[in-house]
Every structure is written in structure tokens, then in C-alpha cells.
């Protein structure tokens, strides 16, 4: 039986603090208060990989800047950091004090700073990979419009600034798996559509000379999509005929 003390925040004993050999900590759908996570984070001696995945239901307003102090004890050992979508608005975070951070995965749904602020605060000295995560991973997925011209321009500017600062950044990875409902459904829509992958291809070519690779899953071919629309149309026509 564990002691309860209402709202009091009890602290781990000095003996228990930094006594665990845990190097990988993955937390998702965290339903406790930030103080509880702080206590948990006090146990590992040297955390190297920390993942805080999305929150589904929690009355606590989680913000990105909270992780600045939550992870303070591990800033010298942390090599990778992943933060999913949070429950309360968008804030910035500075990772300049994390000298060994190599990989950062930030959800688009948790972070909306300008490229200038991002380049000035996210590019830790050894950060070589930045993962920009658009995935929603819920009953619905992100839509095609979530990666548009605005995101392409952000990416280009961020890469330019990273190169100007002679940062360690060498790779940007985009995680983007939109559902088909938001895709062009007719020939007319397809004719005027600029797909997210067209924009990513364009950005990839532009930032390559800066020494930064852009990676993303999936490819999109206009001809293939046209074929799909035509096939879907035929299926619809046939089912309508059968009904009449």
C-alpha cells in the first residue's frame, strides 16, 4: 500500500535519486502532473533517450517549455528527445544547453515558432537530425493541407539559418502520413493541386547544396493519382448503374 498525502508533492529520498540505470524512458498519454514526471526523471542516473508521446486526455495543461526544467538533470547526457502533441498552446524551448543532444523529434502540433526563433533555440551543438512530426496518430490522420507552402518556406529558412550558423544539422526528416479523404477527389482538383510531396521534393533540392538532407516517407505521382481517380469514378458509375 502506498502512502497518500493528498496534494502534497513527496520527494524521493536522496538514496533513490539518480540510482537507476534507466537510459531510455518512453512515456505516452501521461495523466499525472508535471511534478510526478519530475520525480520520475530524478531516478535515472543518466538518461540518454526520452520520449513524451501525445496526450489524449489530461486536465493538466502541458506546454513545451516545461520540458526545459523537467529535463534539466539530464541535459548533459540526453542524446535524443521526442515530444509529441501537447494539451496547452504553443511555446518555445531552448536546447542550447544540451551539449550531447543529437536527434530532436518535435510534433508540429506542439511547436509553432518562427524559423529564426527555432534556429536560435533548437540547434544544440551536436544536433544533427531534426524530425518534424506531422502525424496525429488518432482516429483520424493529418490532412494534405497540413503541409503547404508555409511549411515549405519554414523549412527552407530554417535550413538556411542552420547552415549560416555552421550548426551540426545534417538531416531534416518529415513524418507525414495524411489520410486520403483530404486528397484531390476529381480531375479538376488534381489539376490545380500542388501536393505536399511536390513541395518536399522542391525543398529537398534547394537545401541539398547547404549540406542538409531532407528525408520523408512516400512519394506521389500525379499520373498514378489520376489513374486512381478514374478507377474510383468507374467503380462509382458501375455501382450507380447496378442500383438503377
Amino acid at each position, binding site marked *: 500500500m*502506498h*502512502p*497518500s*498525502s493528498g496534494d*502534497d*508533492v*513527496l*520527494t*524521493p*529520498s536522496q*538514496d*533513490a535519486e539518480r*540510482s*537507476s*540505470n*534507466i*537510459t*531510455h*524512458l*518512453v*512515456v*505516452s*498519454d*501521461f*495523466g*499525472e*502532473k508535471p*511534478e*510526478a514526471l519530475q*520525480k*520520475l526523471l530524478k*531516478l535515472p542516473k543518466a538518461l540518454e533517450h526520452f520520449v513524451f508521446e501525445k496526450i489524449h*486526455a*489530461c*486536465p*493538466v495543461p502541458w506546454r513545451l517549455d516545461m520540458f526545459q526544467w523537467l529535463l534539466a538533470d539530464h541535459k548533459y547526457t540526453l542524446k535524443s528527445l521526442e515530444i509529441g502533441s501537447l494539451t496547452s498552446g504553443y511555446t518555445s524551448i531552448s536546447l542550447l544547453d544540451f551539449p550531447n543532444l543529437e536527434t530532436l523529434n518535435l510534433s508540429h502540433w506542439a511547436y509553432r515558432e518562427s524559423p529564426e526563433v527555432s534556429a536560435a533555440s533548437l540547434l544544440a551543438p551536436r544536433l544533427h537530425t531534426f524530425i518534424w512530426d506531422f502525424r496525429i496518430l488518432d482516429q483520424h490522420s493529418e490532412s494534405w493541407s497540413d503541409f503547404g507552402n508555409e511549411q515549405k518556406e519554414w523549412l527552407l529558412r530554417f535550413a538556411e539559418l542552420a547552415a549560416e550558423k555552421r550548426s551540426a544539422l545534417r538531416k531534416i526528416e518529415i513524418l507525414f502520413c495524411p489520410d486520403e479523404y483530404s486528397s484531390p477527389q476529381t480531375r479538376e482538383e488534381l489539376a490545380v493541386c500542388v501536393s505536399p510531396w511536390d513541395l518536399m521534393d522542391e525543398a529537398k533540392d534547394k537545401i541539398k547544396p547547404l549540406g542538409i538532407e531532407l528525408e520523408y516517407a512516400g512519394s506521389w505521382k500525379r499520373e498514378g493519382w489520376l489513374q486512381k481517380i478514374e478507377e474510383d469514378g468507374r467503380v462509382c458509375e458501375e455501382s450507380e448503374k447496378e442500383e438503377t
Partner: protein
Amino acid sequence: MTRCFSCRRTDPAGRPSLGNNAPRKQSLLGSSEDGQLCILPASTSSSVSGSRQKASPTSTPFITRISDELFDEIFIHAIKGSNVWGDTNYQTALALSGVSKRFHRIVQPLMYRTIHIGQHMLAPPCRAVRQLHRTMKFNKALGSMVRALGVHVDWGVSGNISDTEFEIGRELLGWLPNVDSFMIHGGYEHLSTWPMISNAVLNWPRLKSLLFSREDWTLGMPPVCDLILTTPNLTTLTLHGPGGPSVVNLSPLWVPPSKVSASKLRG
């Protein structure tokens, strides 16, 4: 004209002769002088010459000269499932097991390396769990093969699960001394769930990875923190859904039980 690979005779119509009267010889595959795959002439196959002699039916087949350890390594990869858990591909394992007694002897323990009974209930024990329990009861050596274990405890749709329903689960977990990765889903609200986990974990000195996932909002932080402190080799901890609406207001944030004074406990 078609020739029979077996007896190298043809019938008048050019079809391979399958007559029973003809003496049948085994054809042997080998390489021709220009390095192509071919059927060796009878005279060559019986001659003594280097690698071709290895193909002789009277010598030991190459496959039988492969050591058990090497097969072990090959089969581990062959029967690995494709999902994130690395579950065993039992179809492949069973097919391999049926090849020979020797393969069966090698494959059978490998089928116990990863046991994921997440689809079934450890408590109350479902039929599959009872069968596994029975198998291990009569062959405890199989328990030492288990490295990764995933279990599921009913989260109490049918109310609290009595302690006796945990008996089989407790025994089963106690027969697996080499577990290094453990996952448990659901059912933390039952009085017997955490004692079962704690007792098992104490007997797993190789435990490196722990994963707790909730069904309902009953995964409290205190017992998780207790377990962290009793598993010195733990390097990876995954928590899906700790705390939650029903826990936040009641939550005792963690303190090691031994450090709590009696006065504090009384409130």
C-alpha cells in the same frame, strides 16, 4: 528427345521411361567443367574427386555437418515474426520442427523465447494460458528459454478478480528466470496485480526492459517507481497512460515506502 533424369532412358514416344523393370539410379547434381549446374554422368559421380565426392550419397550430407549452434542462429532469424514485438512466427517454427527430430529439438526451445499472450488473459487465466502453464509445469527447462514476455490482465469489466485467479499467473511467471523484457497491459486495480508483478520481477535478474500500458486509468506511479528501484539492470522503461483523470486528484506522488514516517502515514 526427352530423357528421364532418374534412369536416363526414353520410351519409344520420346517420353521418359518410368518402367519398374529398369534399374534406378540416383542422379546427382554438380558442376560441369565450365561451371554450369548439371547432372553428373554416372561414371563421374562415382569417381573420387574433391568436392564431387561430397555429393556422394554414401558420404555425410553437408546439412548434417552444420552444428546445432549455427542452426540455432539461423532459426532464430527464420522464425522471427514481423510485428514490433518480434513475436514468433509459429507457422515457420512448426514447419521447421517437422523436418526432423534434430530440427525439432533445436526449434522447440526457440518457440519459447518470445511469449506474447497479450491477446489472452493471464488473470483470470484463459485456456491458452492454462495450457502453457501445464506444459511448463512438466518441462520447467522450457521456462528458462523465455526472454521476452507480454501479458494481459483483465481490467475488471467483471469486477475485481479474486486472488485465486492469479495463482496460475504467479506460478507461470515464477518459472521464467531469464526474462529480460516484460510487458503488461491492463488490470492494475486488482489487489493481486502489483504483488504478482513485484514477485516476478524480483526473480528476474536479467530484466532490462519494462513496459506498462493501461486499460482503464489505474496505472499509478508509486508502484512503478518502487519497481524501478528493485530492478538494478533496468535500462528501458515505457509507460502508456500512467495516472489519468481518476488518479490525478488522488495521486500520492511517489515516496519510497521505507522512508515514510508513521506520523506522515497517519496524515
